[in-house]
């Protein structure tokens, strides 16, 4: 008697017939085959427990799997061993063949976090069924509800909000914590993009945006394959800790070192990567720009620079007016001349020469261009080149030029100005700033200049300080001066992706809003061969059109500044740059009024519905307690979609259980380190009542469409004037039934079929094989600025198109641009790279909090994983220098309160001689609930942002999705530490 309900069972009295009632066991094999193959029911007696281990190394199946939505840089292939619907272990797969005998191969890939996911997926923090809050937010009182109830509640609230306030008041945040490039990530974006909702852009919001690289190169997602590191003979890891954060790639550094490469590590603390270096340089926290400029000083003063390279590839020959500090423009010299024409000084002919290849300001396409506009622009851009064609620009000297009004003005090449700037960064002075010995600075300069191929590994951690942009500009200057870019084994490496174009267009499906042929023209351009390839600038312009005119992308930090109370900390003058006369408030006002920086809902209107998938905002955003105080009360509905209960889920109104990585199919993040797309097959069914995100998106779209039709909802316009129709949202989501809930694999085929990088691969084949080799970089797109070609068997390196093919950079000057003559930059003294002391963001306290991504977790996903906790302190901990700790009466293992004017948190102290005096290290992503009082390390983070980053419509400085925007700055706040009693 199986499946008896509880009441029925109770009804059978103890004295009546005995009853067997199985709910959880049995029932898989129907009659008549009732005889088990082994065991007591097959005549094999049970002796003792050893009998059950008789077939120890057998499984129901072995599945090709991976860790799909981990947002880790690695794409690692694993074998998953499944027994009775349970993944009981996993093992690294070695399916990457060697394709070049001169390069190390990619085997094996994986790390300890992946190796214990089979344990983590069954953690008790998994959410089993939809939950609805029944007490106050954060009270921990929940009610179990059905998916049907949850979807109806969300759908009705969205419809109400759209009707009453506008679709932009529904806000979707996918963050970065749980992201891949398969249908599950696309499904979330898709449903909200189709409704005209606000979509949070968290790139700068997580502090991963290398703004200084954008300022200099007009792009930033530039890297190559990690086997190209082996081609380097001088590897600098600068503000990065690849032994922690690039575990599957780190062997390429080690192998290059075995081959003879010198490895230099630059970081304040002696971290796990520094111990593997030949030279460790430890500047004071936040002084890396000064170190870079000190190196540049030596290179310039000793004339170690590559003159031919800087003349062609950089703006150093561009002429700047001495009177205004602005570039000399054609409009200054010629009646009716362009604002976007710039000059060099022709040394041979001793006269002005227009700089070749310049593309000027963006928006040459107009706000909403059609395909014909694109074609015209393609023609105009295509033949541009930065090749000098016999021009020999002067890089030194002063010249007088006659302006169109007849007056004369002195002009100088940027290098002249740079020399003046660098004169203040002699190694002896830099020592006073950084603490680095002048001999070391000179040694670095000479070795970088002499290297065959020098590269700088720079992590996203190098973007999280207030003045990170200045550091990046200085580091790029060193590489530019020495010609260390655009060749194998050289250049700055920030990270890049192979373009999975199908993923992008499935996520942001705005085709129905676009003029005919506009999107196909973009797709054609993305994959075009070099003979007809559009310039990066034109591609950027197209992406700007698509993400600014047809979707409501909103950069997180300005959004929090407007809606989340960030103005209370980031707006404090004391936390900003004293050298910049404008306030953050005035810059924000101007930027938003001029629509340089889009914020939806616009100031004056509140967000009402906030749905986040995977992301953990109250762990990551600055000062979470302030977010709860300011933003949370504005929201009528907060929904968390996540496999596990996060700190943010605890503060939500509805929590929906998402399937774990082994419970669905998909493809991994396609970072360019590894030239494969890695697939994960489904090993087991989604646990409990969880559903994969594609299905959640489809079901939500379906319910919204049903409810909208039942309620007679009319089409609506978003703030950009695009019309959306909730009555058709499911039809659009499914492409008129092509890919419904339960049909994520069809969406996967759509993604693959629209991605040139994996040309011709079918999902059925990919899931079987577990990986497919890249066929093409996929073209210059949102996440791919490699500017290099893929050739099977060869390592890929960035900026090949520019250095080798002489294609323009997507900057205002079409070159690596070290001089920015935007008025705000001039006012701030940042027209050229410089060093500025980090602000005292937190108040006047003697210590600075730094951090880094941890070895033991990808963001907060594995932060409470039991095996990972055993490898560290098992609880939130900060690392302190022994002298700093002693002065405060702290011993290893003590607990301390870390505080400043913004907030405080309590953590255990690890006393470590590897930490620099004045520095406190708290590694990344502890969950607030792991701290006493649920007050996490972000509580002391004021996160002031540079007002300069709000500037827009200056050449390459403008906002589009995942591009130039103010950053979260969690590293470097000032604070003090005091001992507290351990409870």
């Amino acid at each position, binding site marked *: 008697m199986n499946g008896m309900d509880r009441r029925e069972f109770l009804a059978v009295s103890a004295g009546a017939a005995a009853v067997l009632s199985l709910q*959880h*066991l*049995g029932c898989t094999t129907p009659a008549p085959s009732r005889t088990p193959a082994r065991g*007591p029911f097959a005549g094999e007696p049970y002796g003792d427990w050893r009998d059950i281990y008789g077939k120890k190394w057998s499984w129901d199946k072995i599945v090709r799997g991976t860790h799909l939505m981990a947002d880790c840089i690695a794409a690692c292939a694993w074998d998953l061993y499944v027994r009775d619907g349970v993944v009981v272990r996993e093992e690294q797969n070695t399916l990457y063949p060697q394709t070049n005998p001169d390069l190390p191969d990619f085997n094996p890939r994986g790390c300890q976090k992946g190796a214990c996911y089979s344990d983590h997926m069954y953690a008790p923090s998994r959410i089993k069924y939809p939950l609805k809050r029944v007490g106050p937010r954060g009270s921990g009182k929940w009610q179990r509800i059905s998916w049907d109830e949850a979807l109806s509640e969300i759908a009705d609230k969205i419809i109400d909000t759209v009707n009453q306030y506008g679709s932009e008041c529904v806000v979707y945040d996918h963050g970065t914590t749980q992201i891949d490039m398969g249908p599950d990530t696309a499904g979330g974006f898709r449903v909200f993009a189709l409704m005209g909702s606000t979509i949070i852009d968290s790139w700068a919001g997580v502090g991963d945006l290398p703004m200084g690289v954008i300022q200099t190169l007009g792009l930033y997602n530039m890297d190559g394959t990690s086997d190209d590191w082996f081609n380097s003979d001088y590897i600098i890891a600068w503000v990065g800790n690849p032994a922690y954060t690039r575990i599957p790639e780190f062997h390429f550094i080690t192998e290059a070192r075995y081959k003879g490469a010198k490895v230099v590590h630059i970081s304040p603390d002696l971290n796990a990567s520094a111990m593997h270096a030949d030279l460790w340089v430890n500047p004071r926290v936040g002084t890396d720009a000064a170190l870079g400029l000190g190196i540049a000083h030596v290179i310039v003063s000793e004339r170690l620079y590559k003159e031919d390279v800087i003349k062609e590839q950089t703006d150093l020959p561009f002429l700047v007016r001495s009177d205004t500090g602005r570039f000399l423009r054609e409009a200054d010299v010629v009646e009716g001349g362009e604002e976007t024409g710039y000059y060099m000084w022709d040394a041979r002919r001793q006269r002005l020469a227009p700089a070749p290849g310049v593309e000027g300001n963006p928006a040459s396409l107009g706000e909403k261009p059609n395909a014909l506009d694109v074609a015209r622009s393609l023609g105009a851009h295509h033949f541009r080149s930065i090749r000098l064609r016999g021009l020999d620009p002067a890089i030194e000297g002063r010249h007088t030029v006659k302006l169109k009004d007849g007056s004369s003005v002195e002009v100088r090449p940027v290098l002249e100005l740079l020399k003046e700037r660098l004169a203040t960064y002699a190694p002896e002075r830099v020592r006073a700033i950084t603490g680095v010995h002048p001999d070391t600075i000179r040694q670095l300069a000479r070795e970088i200049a002499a290297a065959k191929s020098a590269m700088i590994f720079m992590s996203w951690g190098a973007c999280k300080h207030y003045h990170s942009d200045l550091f990046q500009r200085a580091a790029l200057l060193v590489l530019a001066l020495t010609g260390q870019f655009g060749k194998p084994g050289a250049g700055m490496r920030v990270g890049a992706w192979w373009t999975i174009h199908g993923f992008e267009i499935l996520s942001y499906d705005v085709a129905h809003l676009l003029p005919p042929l506009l999107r196909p023209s973009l797709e054609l351009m993305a994959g075009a061969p070099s003979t007809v390839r559009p310039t990066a600038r034109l591609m950027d312009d197209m992406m700007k059109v698509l993400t600014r005119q047809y979707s409501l992308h909103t950069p997180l930090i300005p959004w929090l500044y407007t809606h989340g109370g960030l103005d209370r900390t980031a707006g404090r003058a004391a936390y900003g740059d004293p050298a910049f006369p404008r306030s953050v408030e005035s810059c924000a006002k101007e930027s938003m009024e001029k629509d340089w920086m889009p914020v939806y809902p616009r100031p004056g209107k509140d967000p009402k519905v906030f749905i986040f998938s995977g992301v953990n905002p109250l762990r990551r955003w600055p000062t979470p307690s302030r977010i709860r105080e300011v933003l949370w009360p504005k929201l009528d509905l907060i929904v968390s979609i996540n496999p596990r*209960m996060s700190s943010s889920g605890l503060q939500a109104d509805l929590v929906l259980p998402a399937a774990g990585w082994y419970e669905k199919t998909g493809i991994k993040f396609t970072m360019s380190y590894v030239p494969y797309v890695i697939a994960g097959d489904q090993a087991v069914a989604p646990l409990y009542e969880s559903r994969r995100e594609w299905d959640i998106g489809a079901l939500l779209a379906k319910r919204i469409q049903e409810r909208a039709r039942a309620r007679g909802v009319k089409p609506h316009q978003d703030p950009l004037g695009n019309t959306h129709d909730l009555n058709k949202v499911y039809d659009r989501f499914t492409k008129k039934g092509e890919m419904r809930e339960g049909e994520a694999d069809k969406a996967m085929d759509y993604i693959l079929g629209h991605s040139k990088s994996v040309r011709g691969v079918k999902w059925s084949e990919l899931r079987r094989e577990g990986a497919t080799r890249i066929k093409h970089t996929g073209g210059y797109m949102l996440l791919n600025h490699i500017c290099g070609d893929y050739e099977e068997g060869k390592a890929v390196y960035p900026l090949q198109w520019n250095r080798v093919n002489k294609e323009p950079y997507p900057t205002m000057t079409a070159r690596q641009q070290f001089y920015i003559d935007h008025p705000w930059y001039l006012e701030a003294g940042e027209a050229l790279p410089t060093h500025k002391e980090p602000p005292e963001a937190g108040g006047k306290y003697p210590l600075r909090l730094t951090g880094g991504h941890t070895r033991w977790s990808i963001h907060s996903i594995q932060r409470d994983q039991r095996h990972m906790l055993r490898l560290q302190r098992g609880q939130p901990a900060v690392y302190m220098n022994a002298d700093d700790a002693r002065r405060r009466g702290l011993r290893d293992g003590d607990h301390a309160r870390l505080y400043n004017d913004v907030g405080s948190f309590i953590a255990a102290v690890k006393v470590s001689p590897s930490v620099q005096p004045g520095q406190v290290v708290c590694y990344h992503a502890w969950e607030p609930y792991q701290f006493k009082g649920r007050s996490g390390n972000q509580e002391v983070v004021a996160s002031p942002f540079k007002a300069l980053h709000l500037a827009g419509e200056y050449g390459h400085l403008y906002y589009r999705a995942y591009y130039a925007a103010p950053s979260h700055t969690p590293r470097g706040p000032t604070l003090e530490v005091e001992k507290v009693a351990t409870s």
Partner: protein
Amino acid sequence: MTTSTQEVEAVPDVSVPPPEPGSPPATRSRVYKLLALGLEFPDPDFFEEIQQGGYERALGDALAALPFVLPAEALPAAGALRTDAALDYQAFESEFIRLFEVGSGGGGPPCPLYAGEYGGGRLKTMEEALRFYDFFGLRLSDAEGRELPDHATVQLEFLHFLAYREGAPAADGPDPVSLQRAEADFLERQAARWLPLLAKRVASQETLPFFKSLVRLAADFARADLHYVKSLLATGGVK
């Protein structure tokens, strides 16, 4: 790539004649099932049974018929296994979720109902439970929302099954001593090992007396039953 290295095995025939009503195996089997039912996610109907005393009565009757005597401190006080009349279903459900399923502070519930959370390694514990089930021709149900193999309800249900079959007189069925040996091993290695740890955790919580009493009873019963089965096996098994 998916490779199959093991054929799906058949489930045992459960339509064999039942054990003699009131016999020791039948009673023990029933207690295990009743305990499992108490730890299932509560639905409104079952909550009504609890509130009206039906569950307490059924369990009390079964306990009274056991072939061994539970220690006095193990027996729930009168009324402990029913809930206050003023308590509504939503409060009961919410407390079940807080205590066993979600918690209120992050990192999972304070008292998860999974054996592997109480030592022995989660995967190792789950895999061993699966091996026990498999050896006796059982697999986890394929129903949506199925539980994991080390969940209290699954483990108690397995013991319910073993005890039932121990008392089922099937001519071609397994030797009852095999089943008793398996009961002793499964209790020793799994249920009787961790249920007392669960009970200790629940006891430390501010929660409803119902949950404290029920979990305490489950732990004490598992230990007492282990002692009982071992005593039978010490004399050759089966009585």
